[in-house]
């Protein structure tokens, strides 16, 4: 099975940012710092968010799933960030609508059309208000990491 490597250093809890650009810049920088993506990844993410936004409309807390070209990714992983106050993303399906996002899952995928199972599990999180609340209500980074690993990989 295509198991991905989840890196504990790429989980960030209860962060404060003012915009989707700030969140995406921060996460891209972290992915670059640990060698998962190329330097150009950040610009690609920011450009893509303008053209094809990644906010997924749902009850609160909503999720955004920014991602960019596979050729800018060295090694597949995800970075997860929760916000103390929601920031505005645009709605993927209706670009002039806003989505107040509190959970950002940045997908660094090195191959197109891959990671079907992980993507389906992320979509399960998107579809579960209960899970989304749990993610926002974690009390430590370790709790956040364990919860995500459990949901995506079945690990405890």
């Amino acid at each position: 099975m295509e198991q991905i490597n989840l890196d504990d250093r790429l989980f960030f809890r209860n962060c404060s940012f003012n915009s989707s650009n700030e969140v995406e810049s921060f996460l891209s920088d972290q992915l670059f710092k640990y060698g998962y993506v190329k330097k150009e990844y950040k610009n690609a993410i920011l450009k893509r968010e303008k053209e094809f936004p990644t906010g997924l409309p749902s009850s609160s807390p909503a999720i955004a799933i920014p991602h960019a070209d596979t050729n800018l990714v060295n090694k597949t992983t995800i970075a997860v960030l929760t916000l103390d106050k929601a920031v505005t993303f645009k709605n993927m399906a209706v670009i002039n609508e806003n989505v107040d996002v509190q959970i950002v899952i940045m997908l660094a995928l090195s191959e197109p059309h891959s990671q079907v199972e992980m993507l389906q599990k992320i979509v399960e999180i998107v579809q579960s208000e209960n899970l989304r609340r749990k993610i926002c209500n974690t009390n430590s980074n370790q709790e956040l990491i364990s919860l995500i690993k459990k949901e995506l990989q079945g690990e405890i």
Partner: protein
Amino acid sequence: MSKKILVACGNGIATSTVVATKIKKYLAEEGIDAETTQTRLTEVTGKVASYDLLVTTGQFSGQTHGVPYVLGMSLLTGIGADETLKKIKEVLMQNS
């Protein structure tokens, strides 16, 4: 004959994977023979003419050359997903 569905998202790498998988599973259960191809939203207009149906996760307002179009966002969020799947089936059956 197998139905051809073009599934598009912003980069053609992530959300279209999930949506294509869900559509294939549903149509298989309904006994409808279908194949999906994933692409980027920017490449839809050039490719779509030879397909029976277009499904996108993101907003698409370009030319579909008369090919029916269904928005697939509900298959990500779960809200209205059953209706979307039924609509996909209906469109495919109409054209057979």
